[in-house]
């Protein structure tokens, strides 16, 4: 790697997806600051336990992690100087609920339907990740002691979920999250629709020493290889893909360097609607239910095999054999090492498939040789780090009711240019894919009054017609969230010390 990052200064959740280190459980707390001085003292206490991005080996990994982030109102409540506050970007200042028109959070996803907690003003986010619930509980109790002792911060309630007795409540004090488990009890990386999730997270410079991890996850070179993305796409204070420092960094440097922005979104999954939709559509889709589900996503549900390499049952069976026999490192590579170069038409992986929409790789060049400066010219600046986990359990596969979905967290240096752009232009719209307004099947904000469709392409000149997936219902609903600033460890301590000064 060409870059050495101050891993001890960067918060761990930025560089690591804790889930892949065995931290299968999480708890997210949201707080309000009522008094500046006391709020800062509280931040100082928590900061002493915040987990950095330091590399772990077998013995040095902690049993529980803690990270902290702030909304704009939170930074105001902690009395950051105005000269610093004015340097934050408009999207972060407004907060996620005010950006609903851009994000497509309408109808059932409208903020008026969000968990009660989001009707309040959220200031601080604290995450606890652990291997077991007991590990988490220990750290949680400690944090609660700090809150009680502080006299200046309050834990906000109002999360929808199940209480300790399994009864539904809309007033819980924190958001639980956890990986899902297979029927035999082994941990899975699936989410509630049955898709294997968490594949293909971007890799940036300085993040890992393991070159193999970059394949399929960095940016494409003209020669067809992969190199890491510029660090500045994900961490402030580092050069980004536009050959400059992110302009979303407020002053002073010590406040913004090694920090980033986090999008937190609670996404409820309409499992009943999804299953019904999948069943109905399979009746008219030539290829079977699992292939149809794979076409929605771009990957097969069971193991995430990319459609570009496994466009039908036969090739999938081949791939499965190889995968089962491969070592972990080769398996990872099989999952991510692909482009759409051999599939510009979309016959293998539809242009509206989820993974193709959120990361088109080099395909926006449409096969025109050397049209752009680099094949990923239109994509490299639209990547996000994903750090979330599923929440809840599905009790009834035929129902949408209940509390189950994904806590989606995206980390990026520029919320508007990265997360919001993908959400608005590539998920809820399709001009870059030359598909008009056709929304992505799984995450799109499909209109109940006038539902839309997507087209699954086929081999050109094959005489076969493309397949239409009609009347797509809304499968995912936003239940809450906001935009947060994740400071470096240094910045955390300076905020806590009240010594931020951009003079």
């Amino acid at each position, binding site marked *: 790697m060409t870059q050495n990052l101050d891993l001890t200064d960067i918060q761990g959740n930025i560089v690591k997806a804790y889930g892949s280190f065995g931290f299968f459980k999480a708890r997210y707390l949201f707080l309000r600051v009522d008094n500046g001085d006391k709020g800062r003292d509280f931040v100082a206490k928590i900061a002493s336990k915040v987990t950095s991005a330091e590399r772990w080996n077998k013995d040095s990994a902690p049993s529980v992690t803690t990270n902290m982030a702030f909304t704009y109102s939170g930074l105001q409540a902690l009395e950051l100087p105005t000269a610093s506050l004015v340097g934050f970007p408009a999207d972060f200042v407004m907060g996620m609920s005010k950006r609903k028109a851009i994000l497509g959070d309408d109808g059932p996803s409208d903020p008026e339907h969000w968990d009660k907690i989001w009707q309040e003003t959220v200031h601080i986010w604290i995450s606890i990740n652990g291997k077991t619930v007991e590990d988490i509980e220990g750290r949680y109790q400690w944090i609660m002691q700090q809150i009680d002792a502080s006299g200046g911060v309050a834990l906000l309630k109002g999360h929808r979920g199940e209480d300790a007795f399994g009864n539904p409540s809309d007033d819980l004090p924190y958001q639980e999250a956890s990986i899902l488990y297979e029927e035999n009890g082994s941990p899975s990386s699936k989410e509630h629709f049955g898709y294997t999730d968490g594949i293909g997270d971007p890799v940036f410079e300085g993040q890992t020493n393991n070159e193999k991890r970059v394949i399929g996850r960095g940016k494409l070179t003209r020669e067809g290889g992969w190199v890491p993305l510029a660090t500045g796409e994900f961490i402030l204070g580092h050069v980004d893909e536009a050959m400059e420092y992110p302009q979303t960094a407020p002053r002073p440097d010590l406040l913004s360097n090694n920090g980033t922005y986090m999008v937190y979104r609670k996404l409820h999954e309409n499992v009943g609607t999804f299953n019904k939709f999948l069943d109905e559509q399979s009746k008219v889709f030539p290829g079977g239910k699992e292939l149809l589900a794979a076409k929605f996503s771009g990957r097969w549900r069971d193991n995430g095999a990319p459609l570009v390499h496994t466009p039908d049952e036969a090739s999938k069976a081949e791939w499965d054999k190889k995968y089962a026999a491969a070592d972990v490192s080769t398996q990872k590579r099989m999952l991510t090492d692909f482009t759409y170069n051999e599939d510009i038409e979309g016959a293998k992986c539809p242009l509206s498939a989820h993974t193709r929409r959120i990361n088109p790789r080099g395909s926006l060049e449409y096969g025109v040789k050397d049209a752009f400066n680099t094949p990923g010219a239109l994509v490299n600046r639209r990547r996000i780090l994903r750090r979330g986990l599923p929440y809840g359990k599905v009790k009834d596969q035929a129902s949408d009711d209940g509390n189950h979905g994904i806590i989606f967290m995206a980390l990026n240096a520029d919320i508007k240019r990265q997360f919001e752009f993908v959400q608005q232009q590539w998920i809820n719209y399709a001009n870059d894919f030359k598909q008009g307004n056709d929304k992505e099947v799984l995450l799109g904000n499909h209109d109940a009054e006038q539902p839309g469709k997507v087209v699954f392409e086929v081999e050109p000149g094959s005489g076969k*017609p493309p397949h*239409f997936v*009609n009347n797509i219902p809304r499968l995912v609903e936003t239940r809450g969230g906001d935009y947060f600033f994740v400071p470096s460890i240094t910045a955390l301590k300076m905020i806590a010390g009240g010594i931020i000064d951009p003079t």
Partner: protein
Amino acid sequence: MGFMDTLNIFLKPNSSGNATALTVLCPIINRVVDGRSSADIVRERCLRLPIHEKSPLAKVPNTYLARIFILDNVFYESLPGSDSIFNFSEITSIFSDKSRIGALPQKDQLKSKYLVFSSNFHGDLDAYLRGMWDKWSYDDNGQQRDVRYIWENCVAFGGVTDSSSFISYMKRCQLNSALFFNGSTDDSLQEQLKALYLKQEFSKFAAAHQGESAADLQQAFKVFIEQVQPSNLSGPSWEPGQSKP
């Protein structure tokens, strides 16, 4: 590229196939009327033009996309210098303050303000300008306005009394394109709108009739063709400026 195409790059700089670019800068009379400058009057009238299907340009045949703005003045380039192109002033500036100051961008001033009209349309310029004179029309709070309402504060526009003099006037204000890039088609507007209508309707048809038997489909298709009349440009279609499905 054919010989005529190559020649046309020079002979017809405002054309790309049958698509035409019109750029006019019309000087605005420098005067004050009832405490308001003519330029501000023109600007306000432009800002209040109704949009989309209600725009007067929706009535001017063959207009693809067009815009109007007022050019108040040129900008002073108070921007950082670049280290890319070497100038001798880079050396002389070290020794002479006068040289350093002299190497800064110069301040420029326009003596008049200009009404800038930039249009992309299909076909012949004279026909288009005639269309502007004859057809430009919109409702301004109950009053119907024609093209003169926007242009009447421009220098020498008083001499424009009919389509012929309007065409001459606009040609006097016209500037040629150094590069006219066509990223779309050069069909007539009617063709474009009909095609868009057909794309929308046929997409709906194809999605709705998926999986039907050959006989049913063929029957439905014939009905569809009767409804949409693909070759009839005056038949059902999108309206110019149509903003809702």
